[in-house]
């Protein structure tokens, strides 16, 4: 042990350094956010509670009941029941999602050719029973009306998903950093 080391040890030099560091942190502002009163805006395109897109023209769901989303879903939480309506058209009777099983991978949104299913930005939902999270078609449509209808829904599909059958015009070249900032 050299003389400097000895002196440092006797005068608790390293302990004092540590104390100085903690003191510095004490006078610097805290980084925590007071969550329920002070919320962070969700990033556009973030994956929250499911929604079923309502067609503005017909006033009904866009979904045609092809079942691609249910086929893609890794946690198998989408259940679709269809029947034959007039003119041999497929009618979606029930479209149900078990939200508690969902892993929010958004493969269903990617799979859907019509842009009929979406993940809204709602992330605060809670309840006392499991049954509350068995979302039926009506609940999913209502969720769309409440959270994603109008311009927000359009931007959601145009910027992030661009489903194959929907015409968004010429693809605008959006640079990566711009996408992040939207």
């Amino acid at each position, binding site marked *: 042990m050299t003389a400097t080391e000895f002196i440092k040890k006797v005068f608790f030099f390293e*302990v004092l350094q*540590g*104390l100085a*560091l*903690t*003191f510095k*942190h*004490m*006078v*610097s*502002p*805290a*980084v*925590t956010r*007071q969550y329920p009163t002070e919320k962070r805006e969700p990033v556009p395109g973030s994956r929250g509670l499911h929604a079923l897109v309502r067609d503005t023209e017909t006033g009904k769901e866009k979904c045609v009941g092809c079942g691609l989303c249910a086929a893609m879903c890794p946690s198998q939480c989408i259940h679709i029941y269809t029947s034959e309506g007039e003119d041999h058209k497929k009618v979606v009777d029930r479209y149900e999602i078990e939200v508690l099983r969902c892993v929010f991978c958004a493969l269903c949104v990617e799979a859907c050719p019509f842009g009929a299913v979406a993940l809204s930005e709602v992330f605060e939902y809670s309840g006392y029973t499991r049954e509350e999270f068995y979302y039926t078609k009506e609940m999913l449509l209502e969720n769309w009306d409440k959270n994603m209808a109008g311009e927000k829904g359009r931007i959601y599909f145009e910027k992030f998903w661009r489903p194959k059958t929907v015409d968004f015009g010429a693809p605008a070249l959006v640079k990566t950093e711009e996408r992040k900032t939207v």
Partner: protein
Amino acid sequence: MNANDIVWILIKTIGVVAVFLIHVMFVQLFERKAIAHMQSRMGPMRVGWHGVLQPIADSIKLFFKEDIIPTNSDKPIFFIAPIIGVIAAVSSLAVIPLWEGFSIANLNVGILYILALSSVGAYAVILGGWASNSKYSFLGGLRSSAQVISYEIAMGLSLVGVMMMSGSTNLSDIVSAQAEGRWFVVPQIMGFAIFFIAALAETNRVPFDLPEAETELVSGFATEYSGMRWALFFMAEYAGMFVMSALAVVCFFGGWSGPGFLPPVIWFLMKVYAFIFLYFWIRATLPRYRYDQLMGLGWKIFIPVALANIVLTGLIKILLK
């Protein structure tokens, strides 16, 4: 002693204990806030403005919590242990002089009285840990017993220098001996360092909180305690911290003395709270010691250094005569 004296002593006692209970409630808010800010957090924010009413909410919660008694515990000892702790810690307040001429009992053996009660306080931890009949509690109790008897020696020896310089063990006399800013911390810097570190060990605070090391022993001796009984242990710990800080202020930092623009009691409390803040500051900074390091430090470094300090003080006192 007439009836008037007895009434006056009762008033003083009740006043000091009441103020002290409020102190215990709010010092833990102070601790949570201080440590939170040192970790770039905010601490309690919900109850009242910046959480100032949090201690009251906590005490109500603790008061109504279920009092769980382990089946195979030794029930009488399990009940008595926290009470011993809190009585020992709170009675130490009796000799602490808050300002000139004010202490509940102006004992001639003040320092010895505090040391005696702090050693009785160790029983709370040992017996509580033993009576819980749990391995964690038991290990916590054993660690505490060994730690407290080792560090009490170093602590007593470190105060001998102060006793030699003031020629008294009466706390008021020690403060008067430091009049006009001749604080004993300057000549007794070695004694002060040992005293402070031993006080950390004696009150089971970080970095010597081996008896309640969370990562190893869950909550040490207090693992099986809940509700009010746990709160009594908690109170004893904070009371011990207050008493040790007050003892440090009285013995090394001139007690209630200070420039005249503030009343003496404010000076005293400011110094004590500076010390309590130092406890929290150290808790936020340092990691926990290993147990064998702790014992080695106590026996191999602090006791010899404290003895050397006594010899040096005596030599200098004779030379200056």
